[in-house]
């Protein structure tokens, strides 16, 4: 559904004859490398709003929404209830297509940029992100799925994987901007899409996308790859390493 909406929006944007502004962006890096000393990163996105002679003037200035979407995951949200005096997981709701990472960066609070209906239609801001639950699981009630949805968003924000900040986009000149994208240390590897929406006077003017990827390299990549593809031999090697460490210790600390 969200993809169809996005497609329609793009088609509509293309259909407008007097092509308005154009966004030109550049990212500080397109490959974030996870090495053994990786403790998170911060990407910087630079861009400018290109105008030509035919572009209408925008006396109110521009607003920019940068949305960064991490790779998709299937995430189960569970709720604990008290059973026989013990807190145990009972109910759950699965979100089969949830972004692992989601950052919304804007130059001012989202709700000031456009009206609620527009924001919802364009999925701008954490509260408006489409988060479909697994088919069949949602049937019970809307109240239940809303409770899970808000708990999911709250936990992701707590983990630092979902974030929204109103002053993370800075306009250096009326048409030149800079945005920061913080990546915490425990973000999953994969491809991250950046979606930029330019607003003027409460309406979307143009849209642009960019992307970067997070990859493990060197030793981290090697270990993770072997563990995934050759689990049995990886286990044997770890067990052998344990024996070796134990043997070295018994030799090193031998008292007789």
């Amino acid at each position, binding site marked *: 559904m969200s993809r169809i909406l996005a497609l329609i929006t793009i088609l509509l944007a293309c259909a407008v004859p007097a092509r308005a502004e154009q966004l030109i962006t550049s990212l500080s890096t397109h490959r974030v490398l996870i090495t*053994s000393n990786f403790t998170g990163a911060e990407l910087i996105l630079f861009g400018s709003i290109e105008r030509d002679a035919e572009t209408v003037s925008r006396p109110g200035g521009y607003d920019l929404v940068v949305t960064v979407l991490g790779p998709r995951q*299937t995430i189960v949200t569970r709720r604990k209830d008290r059973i026989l005096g013990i807190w145990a*997981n009972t109910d759950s709701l699965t979100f089969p297509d949830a972004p692992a990472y989601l950052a919304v960066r804007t130059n001012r609070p989202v709700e000031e940029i456009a009206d609620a209906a527009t924001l919802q239609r364009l999925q701008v801001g954490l509260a408006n992100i489409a988060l479909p639950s697994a088919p069949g699981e949602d049937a019970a009630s809307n109240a239940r799925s809303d409770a899970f949805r808000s708990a999911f968003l709250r936990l992701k924000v707590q983990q630092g994987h979902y974030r929204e900040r109103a002053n993370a986009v800075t306009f250096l000149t009326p048409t030149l901007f800079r945005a920061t994208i913080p990546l915490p*240390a425990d973000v999953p590897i994969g491809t991250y899409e950046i979606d930029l929406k330019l607003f003027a006077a409460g309406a979307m003017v143009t849209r642009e996308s960019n992307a970067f990827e997070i990859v493990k390299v060197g030793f981290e990549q090697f270990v993770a790859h072997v563990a995934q593809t050759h689990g049995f031999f990886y*286990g044997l*090697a770890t067990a052998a*390493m344990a024996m070796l460490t134990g*043997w*070295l*210790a018994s030799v090193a600390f031998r008292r007789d």
Partner: protein
Amino acid sequence: MQIYLPIAELPVNVFLILFMGVAVGFISGMFGIGGGFLMTPLLIFVGITPAVAVASVASHIAASSFSGAMAYWRRRALDLPLAGMLLMGGFIGTAGGVWLFALLRSAGQLGLAIGLSYVTLLGIVGVLMINESVRAIARAQRGKPADLRRPGSHAWFHGLPLKFRFKQSRIYVSLIPVWVIGFVIGFLGAIMGIGGGFLLVPALIYLLRVPTSVVIGTSMVLTLVTMAGATVMHAATNQSVDAVLALILMVGGVIGAQFGARTGQNIRAERLRLLLGLLVLSVGIRFAFDLVIRPDDLYSLQVIAGPT
């Protein structure tokens, strides 16, 4: 100094993990146990998922029990045939445990299962150990000699068939209880990330009446093989063994164990058992609190598919 763990997928402070290894190693050397029941909760506390913690601790225990077993092997204070028979049960138990572990993880009940097993097991063993050691201390204070007799009374399982003579241990018992003990230790070890030394040692002494002199060495051989097996099986089934984390723990653990062993030799045996009993019981009570007290957040997330 931060280092990124490739499987746990988060950076940790090397010195913190090393310190935890030394501290738990100290306790394990002092009491002659693996220390998994302390290490696994500590790792979960610093943010490592239970799955990775349990699996990585298995290899850490394999390392510390290997260095322990080497020391007992030099003194010939272990019973290899007995260890072998326990292992036959242990391997089946470990395989069953790893299978149930994967099942519980997908059902979202792993945390509860680990919590409940810890409370039950640590509670019972802790109370038994405290009770037994307090009596022993009281006896020693009244000036009576320690109770050294090996009672001739036979429990019901001594009448079972398939009898076998273990020469080193000077016992003649049915293989069935031996296999059952091995199975239970292997099963619990795989689910709880513990070596089971604190269960096996009393089981061998009180149930099978194995002399104390060979019990610890034999228990270490068993712990070594089941934990090495659990490492391989967890790696193959759940891909949850973090070799980098395991290595840091091992290095800390074997160093701590040496100092712990020296300290332990200066404390009288029944006092040592009382301390261990108190330790085991307090960890059990800590887990009980987590189960009974209303959690700060009723909701939790688990990634079940996609890149992690």
